[in-house]
């Protein structure tokens, strides 16, 4: 199927300005392609994402939300990984309460040079969401 006519899932990515944004930029620089319905909002730190923003994205029609987390590289400290994990758990619980499949929220640490990893994550998440969509 030609790339222009292929169906893609709509994925919202929360990326971080200092860590995962450079990796996503570098994916473009290296012409590493990923589905075009991957749309990014930059924030300072992945542990500062509010669950309500994620639920809002699902309500507005996003198929999936991906948190490109700082991981151990977070400039705000080592506790970021644990705190981001907690907010994901909290959001998963809220998603269940709202009858949203928790697997539609994914998180992975994307370091500032992890372009290939980001692209791989987007492709596999896209495939998963298409496979499990009701369309």
């Amino acid at each position, binding site marked *: 199927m030609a*790339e222009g006519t292929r169906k893609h899932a709509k994925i919202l990515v929360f990326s971080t300005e200092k*860590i995962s944004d450079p990796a996503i*930029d570098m994916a473009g620089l290296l*012409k590493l392609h990923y589905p*075009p*319905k991957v749309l990014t909002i930059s924030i300072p730190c992945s542990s*500062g994402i509010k669950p309500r923003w994620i639920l809002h994205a699902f309500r507005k029609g996003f198929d999936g939300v991906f948190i490109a987390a700082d991981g151990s590289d977070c400039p705000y400290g080592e506790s970021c990984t644990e705190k981001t994990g907690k907010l994901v758990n909290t959001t998963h619980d809220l998603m269940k309460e709202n009858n949203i499949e928790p697997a539609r929220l994914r998180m992975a640490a994307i*370091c500032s040079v992890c372009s290939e990893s980001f692209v791989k994550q987007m492709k596999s998440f896209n495939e998963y969401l298409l496979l499990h969509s009701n369309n």
Partner: protein
Amino acid sequence: MNNNIGVYICHCGGNISDYVDVEKVKQAIATEEGVTLAKTTIFACADSNQKEMVEDIRQQHLNGVVVASCSPKLHQITFRAVTERAGLNKYNYVHANIREQVSWAHSDNKPGATEKAIHIVKAAIAKVRYAKSLDPIIIQSQKAVAIIGAGIAGMKAAIQLANMGCPVYLIEREYFVGGRVAQWDSLSTSSETGKQIITRLYQELIKHNTITLFTGAEISSYSGSIGDFHLKVNIKPRYINQQCNEGGLQKAIDVCPVILPDEFNFNITNRKAIYHNFPSEYPQLPVVDMVHCNRCGECLKICGAIDLDQKDELLDIHVGSILMATGFDPYTPIDGEFGYNQINNVITLPQFQRLINLNEKKLIFNEKEIRHIAYIYCVGSRQPEGENKYCSRYCCTTTIHIANVTRRKFKEINNYHFTRGVRTYGKQETLYRESLANGDVFLQSYEDDLPVVTSEDGKTIVKINDILTMKKSMEIEADLVVLVTGMVPRAENSIGALFKLPKGRDKFFNEIHMKLRPVETVIDGITISGACQGPKNVTEAINSALSAATKSFSYVSKGELELEPIIARIEKDACTWCGACANVCPYDAIRIENDGQKEYAVINNAVCKGCGMCLPVCPTDAIDLTAYSNSEIESMIDALAQD
């Protein structure tokens, strides 16, 4: 809310508009709420467009501006400055990245790229509607720079910084300074030899009290960020005391039974476990190679200056910026590549450079006098199949220069150059003309029909189908074959991994933009210089070192830096003080306050770093982050979610 918004969509000279229909983007966003001006521009960053933006902002009283162009890492600062010049607070500007994250990432899908660009620009417009005027936060910046690598780039940068009055920590992994340039004798770029340049720079370096040089030193860990980097430096001992008797030390070297290939001479000679690099090494103090020392104790019987019990030292240093000058490795051919490691008179260009330096009067290799030398170009560079697709830039010039030097130094030398096209750019062309006048023979091939090196009856034969003579088949019997090897990134790159420095397609460290921000990296406060950034000759390495030194100095010179005024804000009425926010804050920036009616949280603005960790834990959603409020983020999500 801002309701007089100007939007500029950049072609980026085709980088964007080749894949994104920018006119369609303009039409799609022109009717968005609050947008009163929408334009496309060939280069948004061009002076002419910046002036036009200033006029637009002033004349139309714009209160919000969006530019959709490259990554904000590159030009957000440019367009913020434009808004400031027009009298609009710079935080009323929002940047939309439609190059790295749209046109380049989706160059395989133009309709998809255009749709994505529309969504990204609409989201930026949604955000700028809520933008407010803000004042930046001022932080202290440590007035000191750490330079990693004391090759020519690092030494030159250190001197430049010291001349500007900046304290410098110059950290070298090896025991001697000078890097690759110390290994070269005659240079194409200078009338001085490499040794003379390093000697001069070292003498200049040690005159500065503000430069602290560490050799045998590596950074084991770091923390902090721009203006406030804390580095742990592990310093290995030399196992020799400062007060050493040179005569006794030489005897100790003589009795050392351990014989190793000498890396300084690219393994064409041997050294002992106690070694100098060469007579004018700096610092002028030998080293015991403890990895290979067998601790036999013979040297201790002769020289009292040797102390095999010296221990590593761990130092903490505090700097405002880090300048990388870690250099390159010469490409090592794989076994059998043009006969390398299989035919015994096939060597690399760096080995040949050391060989002509070590020989006087006669050029001898493997006990045989050398007369006919074949140079095979582009070995490890411009590889059609391999990883190194780039041109190493310096090697054509260096080879021709060395060939000229060899002719001058030794008698009856015949040079045969097997090239893929000679790239002696700029003034270096004069060296090429000199070699032609000398009678050097130049032959050329394409990458799909490279020269072949064979050993036949003890003779080394180089064959080529020369495209300069209608692919006539030629062969030369060579006494020595020199593989003109290019530059590759350091194989040992733990320091790059430690700082998570991005690498480009060629695997060298990557700058933000090769022309506009050529020494800055995406890691704020870390600059790059010299050949760690890509192949460079000595002049180019020095130029980039001076540029990086100036940039690093700009981070520390004022003693303070402007940071984004992004801090948490508590809505007092909504706060019921549970303490969850204070518990998760890594900076102790939240405290309890009591106004007599209720307890509530208060942010210490001077301490808050704007990470937002307190946001998701608040049970009453009483905390927002400046520029990342619920309204801003959710309106961006709304814009991105539109069909």
